[in-house]
């Protein structure tokens, strides 16, 4: 019968315990600690996996949304991609400049939100040459290093992730940077729940038509109708 003197164990024994704990392998004379570590590392319980649907929803949303470009690619590939993206970006910047000017001509101000996703048809004929937008410069900034100019994320997916995190504190979950786009689209943290309720058809049993959020790039700031 071993005496189980815990003072016996030294650094080496400790290392053995730390490595073998999950497999239930103990070290002579350390039965109590072994069983404690084994219990701490016991196999998963179902309730510990309850967050899986939310995690998978987040994965779907991230996959459909802006995927950060892998940093390292093969030289040839990245060179190819770069020349291509530069062209596309130059195109995009030109389009933005064009569209931006057109929008400005209509609304009378330059919208700070105007991103590359505002395809305002350049009907305005006197859209002048891109003002002082040095094209190449902006192209660089727009594409290099996953800058602020990212395509619109999948809001439905984000809403799924948001609502699937049920039972927990939604307000806190919104602190996660992954939801930034959702908060922006909803027009503020307080509006996210309502926004998602409208976006997800079966969310709250409201079969009423979802708001036409897809058509509006920004949240509904009512552009002061000629009131009565």
């Amino acid at each position, binding site marked *: 019968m071993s005496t*189980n003197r*815990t*003072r016996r*164990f030294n*650094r080496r024994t*400790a*290392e053995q*315990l*730390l*490595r073998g*704990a*999950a*497999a*239930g392998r*103990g070290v002579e004379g*350390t*039965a*109590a*600690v*072994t*069983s*404690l*570590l*084994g*219990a*701490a*590392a*016991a*196999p*998963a*319980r179902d309730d*510990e*996996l*309850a*967050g*899986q649907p*939310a*995690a*998978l929803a*987040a*994965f*779907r949303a*991230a*996959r459909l949304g802006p*995927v*950060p*470009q*892998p*940093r*390292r690619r093969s030289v040839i590939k990245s060179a190819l991609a770069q020349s291509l993206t530069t062209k596309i970006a130059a195109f995009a910047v030109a389009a933005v400049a064009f569209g931006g000017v057109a929008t400005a001509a209509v609304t009378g101000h330059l919208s700070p939100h105007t991103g590359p996703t505002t395809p305002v048809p350049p009907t305005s004929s006197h859209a002048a040459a891109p003002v002082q937008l040095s094209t190449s410069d902006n192209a660089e900034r727009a594409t290099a290093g996953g800058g602020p100019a990212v395509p619109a994320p999948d809001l439905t997916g984000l809403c799924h*992730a948001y609502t699937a*995190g049920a039972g*927990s504190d939604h307000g*806190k*979950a919104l*602190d*996660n*940077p*992954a*939801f930034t786009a959702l908060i922006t689209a909803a027009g503020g943290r307080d509006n996210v729940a309502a926004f998602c309720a409208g976006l997800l058809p079966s969310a709250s049993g409201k079969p009423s038509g979802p708001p036409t959020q897809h058509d509006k790039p920004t949240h509904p700031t009512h552009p002061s109708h000629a009131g009565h």
Partner: protein
Amino acid sequence: MASMHDRPGFDEHDMTTDAAVRRAQNGDENAFGVLYRAVQPGLLRYLRVLVGEDAEDVASEAWLQIARDLASFRGDFDGFRGWATTIARHRAMDSLRRRQRRPITGAPAEWVATLAARDDTAGAAVDAVATDAALALIARLPPDQAEAVLLRVVMGLDANAAARVLGKRPGAVRTAAYRGLRTLAGYLERSGVTRMEAPTLKDTR
């Protein structure tokens, strides 16, 4: 990769975890599920000691970020586990800063009672209680010791990986884990648990 089969939560045999990392990075949702099931149980237990009842919320936040940033991760499953743990730890620190709250402290009496009961009863419920009790006891350790023990035992990280998560030197983490085990042994000895026959752990499923 083979060592992963010891970890709590790993129950997939049709896909190695290394392969799961690659496939998830290519958009495979099932592979992401494999990673979740392999990492989440340990992560949640680690977080419970760090942030108590907020653990589930913090874990959710961590998985959101993991899903978002997975494409930029480079490495195998061992690397992934350390990376995911680092993310979760950062979210836990944020949570603690927001709440200005200390981590939970455990009650050793529960653990002793649980150990004593293990002889008579077996089954998942008892095991669950034993896990909770073990975590509660670990939570009584000084924070650096508790974290070192949890990262090694529950997350299955080696000393180097645990050191990277904690931003410390491996030697410091080894020492903290060693001291943690000694302290735990002291708790148990004072409670008289060491006089028990060695409980069997292998039939925990």
